[in-house]
């Protein structure tokens, strides 16, 4: 037994190559070029899957990538769509949504209890009592979703490519091919894409017995394929539209992001099913699906078929069925006044019975429900849209082809921002306001006649050419003339329902009526309540009918209902296509390899990888940090500070620039000295701080913290764009490596590598000197960030490893050890330095952190000055204070962001806290109310566990009494 028919012109099969595969354990044979569905249908296997909700048997519906009830798995891929996935040798396939196979699905009982499962059932039924929900959830989760994910699925990354063209044509049907050819002839570089395996669109299958259409397509394709300016890509779908004509095109191998100068959308239309009882039985299919079976795969849809139509298209389908050897039992036309056009006359001539003004009242299933055994026909009132079932009669058949109309494949047009309006001449939404550079042609534009569609292609090409500056004459075409290709309301009500609108989610007409009764009578609400259009086909065959039904329920014209939002992706796109390589560039210092070799643990700060600490074997992070900090306090430590932001401000106005940009005073700054810089935003909030070193009257060298450096530099550039001072800004962050050697032995270690006089008298704190260190020109800065006895060396990045090695070598006998950025955080805390972004937040002003000393209010302007003048008049609301916990504190340790509690009030929060082995106390910073800011005040911190810990306000530096005087030291 086989539905396979002799070779058709332009069929997609390679009959020389047979393909063996299994479906649910049974062996089948198809040809190369078959899809899974076509090969099974050829073998008269009609039950190809089970529906999502009621587990009803389903077969071929569209063969156009919305047969979502035919989803299969080969064990690796989940949810392969049988209607479009090409057959491969040795495939072993099973339908996804069954228990025990498509024929004896154990869940098929759900269909018989469907009256108990109205729309909204799950929303309502399992809402209360709450404690039972986990039980129901387990059951619902098993029922929801299709297929089982294979967690051993190999991670396959697909390439991403970029491509450019003058004109991208979406859809290689007669309209798109004509448009592409026309545009290419005028000189444009054109790419055409089509989701089908072969170009031609409806010209390939909508033949109505006309042999000429094949020759027509041959000619057109020949011209296009040979054209040097046209690239044709099939098996490729436009997944979405993004601004400025960026269109991701999905193919088996990956995504290509096309950037086009203009786009013609000639994507055609989806055939829409008429709605009648049991319109979902295997053997009931769209007319265009029957044509695809015949002409693409040379498969006869059925032996004795009925065509139910609500437009002239069904008559074309009937002729194609006859030519394929199917006996056409009858053509049933919902319309009473229509003559069916030329093809109806031919059908009369060939003796086919035509029933105008009739409908299929219901399809009748075979006893095993695997196919159709007949159809109940009755008169249809085309005005009231009701079946007149009094004189119904039954015709025997084994299949029904249905044609009721079309919905434009307008997803990309919607995404591009096209305004659509309802055209009653074609009963369809058509574009009326297109975005610049986007054009629509063919069926998606409401043009159906073949000749007219091709002229619409020429018209769209001429529009695109003019958009791109070519002088071509406008080309006008007339609107659709003649009977509407779509029926206004192809719905047959039936008291017993099961007249399906949405095949993805098993939604019937009554579900919409119930939803409206419950108040969900807006299209967006109705969609969510009924779930229409929310299945895998995303409403491609159901949204238009849903809109029509809602319009009828509300007695509104269709255009008043509106449409739901169309979003990418147009078809489901594999995650492997979307995911890609991690692409987060990071910066490494020149000494990175050394850190790695010495066991550093790295942390991400801004774009940089920084050594956080160097744990010795069997040492914890905490041990490592304390040991590194002790080295700095007792002997010496060294840190790679190459990631610090380093900016040169050069020019006669350099000091003026700093005066305006930062809060302090720089015009008076002496050459060779360093000053603290504090950056505010316009509202007076602390943004960042750093050190400005004056190397010459017209040259400042600025160093700022790692994490915010890029943003600070960017703001400097913006200010310069506004102020237009006579300066140049040079970001030398990557040009200089930096390292900070700190501790009591630092001076001695450094002295062994340079002739520079390092005595505290001639090189005091907050000064910069240029000198040769280990044979390398260096900028040496005395900053007191981690220690008063510290030297920061800035050397050319390429030489920084050399200088680092020399210092490490020279420091060996002094116990010099490297320390990381985590240790640096502890060291600066011991020093009592607060850090913007850690001890401040997006609302902190400088008065709240006690930084008044860094602000020079009496200069003409700086960023944030005016806001500070307002803030200065107001009482403080919070104050950052240094605190210690009790000595030998051994209870629940507070953490950063723990709240300061005063009675029942929140009085502040901890911003930094750490144990310091050197001081042997827990020390930190916290915001408190101004009443608590005095040294000696006590306040309470609530820990994560809820316990209250007492802290005492102290002075900084925390180790004040353990270190010699720093003044000029």
């Amino acid at each position, binding site marked *: 037994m086989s539905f396979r028919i002799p070779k058709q012109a332009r069929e997609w099969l390679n009959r020389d190559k047979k393909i063996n595969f299994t479906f649910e354990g049974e062996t089948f044979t198809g040809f190369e070029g078959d899809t899974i569905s076509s090969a099974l249908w050829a073998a008269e296997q009609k039950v190809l899957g089970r529906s999502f909700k009621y587990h009803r048997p389903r077969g071929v519906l569209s063969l156009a990538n919305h047969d979502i009830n035919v989803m299969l798995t080969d064990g690796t891929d989940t949810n392969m769509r049988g209607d479009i996935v090409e057959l491969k040798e040795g495939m072993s396939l099973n339908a996804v949504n069954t228990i025990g196979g498509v024929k004896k699905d154990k869940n098929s009982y759900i269909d018989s209890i469907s009256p108990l499962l109205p729309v909204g059932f799950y929303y309502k039924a399992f809402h209360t009592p709450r404690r039972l929900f986990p039980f129901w959830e387990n059951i619902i989760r098993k029922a929801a979703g299709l297929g089982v994910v294979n967690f051993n699925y190999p991670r396959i990354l697909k390439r991403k490519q970029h491509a450019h063209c003058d004109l991208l044509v979406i859809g290689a049907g007669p309209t798109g091919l004509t448009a592409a050819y026309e545009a290419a002839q005028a000189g444009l570089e054109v790419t055409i894409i089509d989701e089908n395996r072969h170009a031609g669109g409806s010209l390939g299958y909508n033949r109505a017995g006309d042999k000429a259409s094949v020759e027509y397509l041959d000619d057109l394709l020949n011209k296009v394929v040979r054209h040097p300016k046209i690239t044709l890509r099939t098996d490729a779908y436009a997944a979405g539209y*993004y*601004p*400025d004509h*960026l269109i991701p095109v999905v193919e088996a191998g990956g995504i290509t992001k096309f*950037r086009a100068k203009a786009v013609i959308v000639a994507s055609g239309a989806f055939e829409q099913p008429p709605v009648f009882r049991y319109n979902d039985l295997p053997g009931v299919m769209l007319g265009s699906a029957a044509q695809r079976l015949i002409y693409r795969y040379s498969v006869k849809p059925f032996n004795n078929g009925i065509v139910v139509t609500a437009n002239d298209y069904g008559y074309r389908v009937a002729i194609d069925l006859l030519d394929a050897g199917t006996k056409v039992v009858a053509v049933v036309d919902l319309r009473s006044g229509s003559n069916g056009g030329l093809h109806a006359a031919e059908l009369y001539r060939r003796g086919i019975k035509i029933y105008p003004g009739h409908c299929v009242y219901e399809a009748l299933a075979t006893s095993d429900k695997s196919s159709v055994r007949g159809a109940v026909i009755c008169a249809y009132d085309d005005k009231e849209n009701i079946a007149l079932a009094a004189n119904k009669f039954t015709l025997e058949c084994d299949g029904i082809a249905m044609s009721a109309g079309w919905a434009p494949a307008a997803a990309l047009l919607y995404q591009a921002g096209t305004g659509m309006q309802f055209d009653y001449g074609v009963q369809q939404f058509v574009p009326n306001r297109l975005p610049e550079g986007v054009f629509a042609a063919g069926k998606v534009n409401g043009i159906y006649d073949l000749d007219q569609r091709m002229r619409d292609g020429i018209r769209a090409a001429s529009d695109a050419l003019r958009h791109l500056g070519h002088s071509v004459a406008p080309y006008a075409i007339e609107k659709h003339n003649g009977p509407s290709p779509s029926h206004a309301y192809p719905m047959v009500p039936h008291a017993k329902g099961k007249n399906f609108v949405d095949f993805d989610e098993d939604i019937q007409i009554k579900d919409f009526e119930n939803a409206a009764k419950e108040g969900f009578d807006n299209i967006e609400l109705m969609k969510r309540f009924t779930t229409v259009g929310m299945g895998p086909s995303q409403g491609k065959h159901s949204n238009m009918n849903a809109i029509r039904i809602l319009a009828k329920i509300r007695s509104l014209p269709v255009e008043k209902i509106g449409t739901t939002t169309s979003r990418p992706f147009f078809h489901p796109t594999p995650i492997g296509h979307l995911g890609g390589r991690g692409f987060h560039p990071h910066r490494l210092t020149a000494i990175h390899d050394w850190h790695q070799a010495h066991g550093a643990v790295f942390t991400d700060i801004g774009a940089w990888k920084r050594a956080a600490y160097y744990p010795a074997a069997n040492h914890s992070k905490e041990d490592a940090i304390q040991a590194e900090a002790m080295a700095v306090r007792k002997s010496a430590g060294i840190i790679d500070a190459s990631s610090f932001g380093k900016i040169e401000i050069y020019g006669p106005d350099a000091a003026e620039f700093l005066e305006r940009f930062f809060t302090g005073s720089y015009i008076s700054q002496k050459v060779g000295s360093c000053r603290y810089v504090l950056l505010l935003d*316009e*509202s007076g909030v602390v943004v960042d701080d750093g050190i400005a070193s004056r190397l010459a009257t017209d040259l400042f060298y600025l160093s700022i913290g790692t994490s915010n450096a890029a943003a600070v*530099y*960017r703001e400097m*550039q*913006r200010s310069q*764009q*506004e102020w*237009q001072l006579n300066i140049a800004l040079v*970001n030398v962050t990557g040009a200089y490596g930096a390292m900070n050697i700190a501790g009591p032995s630092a001076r001695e270690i450094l002295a062994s590598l340079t002739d520079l006089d390092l005595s505290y008298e001639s090189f005091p704190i907050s000064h910069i000197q240029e000198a040769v260190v280990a044979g390398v020109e260096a900028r040496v800065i005395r900053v007191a960030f981690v220690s008063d006895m510290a030297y920061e060396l800035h050397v050319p990045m390429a030489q920084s490893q050399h200088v680092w090695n020399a210092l490490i070598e020279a420091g060996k006998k002094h116990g010099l050890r490297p320390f990381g950025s985590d240790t640096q955080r502890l060291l600066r805390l011991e020093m009592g330095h607060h850090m913007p972004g850690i001890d401040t937040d997006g609302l902190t002003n400088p008065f709240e952190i006690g930084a008044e000393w860094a602000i020079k209010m009496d200069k003409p*302007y700086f960023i944030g*000055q*005016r*806001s500070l003048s*307002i803030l200065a008049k107001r009482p403080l609301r919070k104050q950052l204070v240094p605190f210690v916990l009790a000595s030998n504190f051994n209870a629940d340790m507070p953490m950063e962001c723990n709240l300061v509690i005063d009675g029942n009030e929140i009085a502040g929060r901890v911003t930094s806290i750490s144990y310091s082995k050197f001081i042997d106390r827990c020390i930190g910073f916290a915001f408190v109310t101004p009443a608590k800011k005095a040294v000696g005040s006590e306040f309470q911190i609530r820990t994560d566990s809820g316990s209250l810990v007492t802290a005492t306000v102290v002075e900084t530096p925390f180790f004040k009494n353990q270190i010699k005087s720093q003044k000029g030291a």
Partner: protein
Amino acid sequence: MKLLTCPVNGTRPLSEFIFGGEYRQAPEQNSCTDAEWAAYVHNRHGAPGDKKEWWYHSPSGTWFIAERNTLTDKVSSTYLLSQKNLNEEKAAQEAGK
């Protein structure tokens, strides 16, 4: 992805740019009232329409002004702030002649 035209580097994809907020002229800080200054610092015009905006071309470090309609997302022109100032000065001078 949207395209944006840097006045120095030409048309580039949006991922190369950083948005810098609306370009607004600050009131004269020495003569304005506290309320005027607070309004400048804290209030923004949320209504869509033609806006002057700061944009930054990150790879080249170029700040420029884009005149963009925030309703249609259409950019009508981009220019360096300094160029616009020069143009305006020139126009003012010529108008004064």
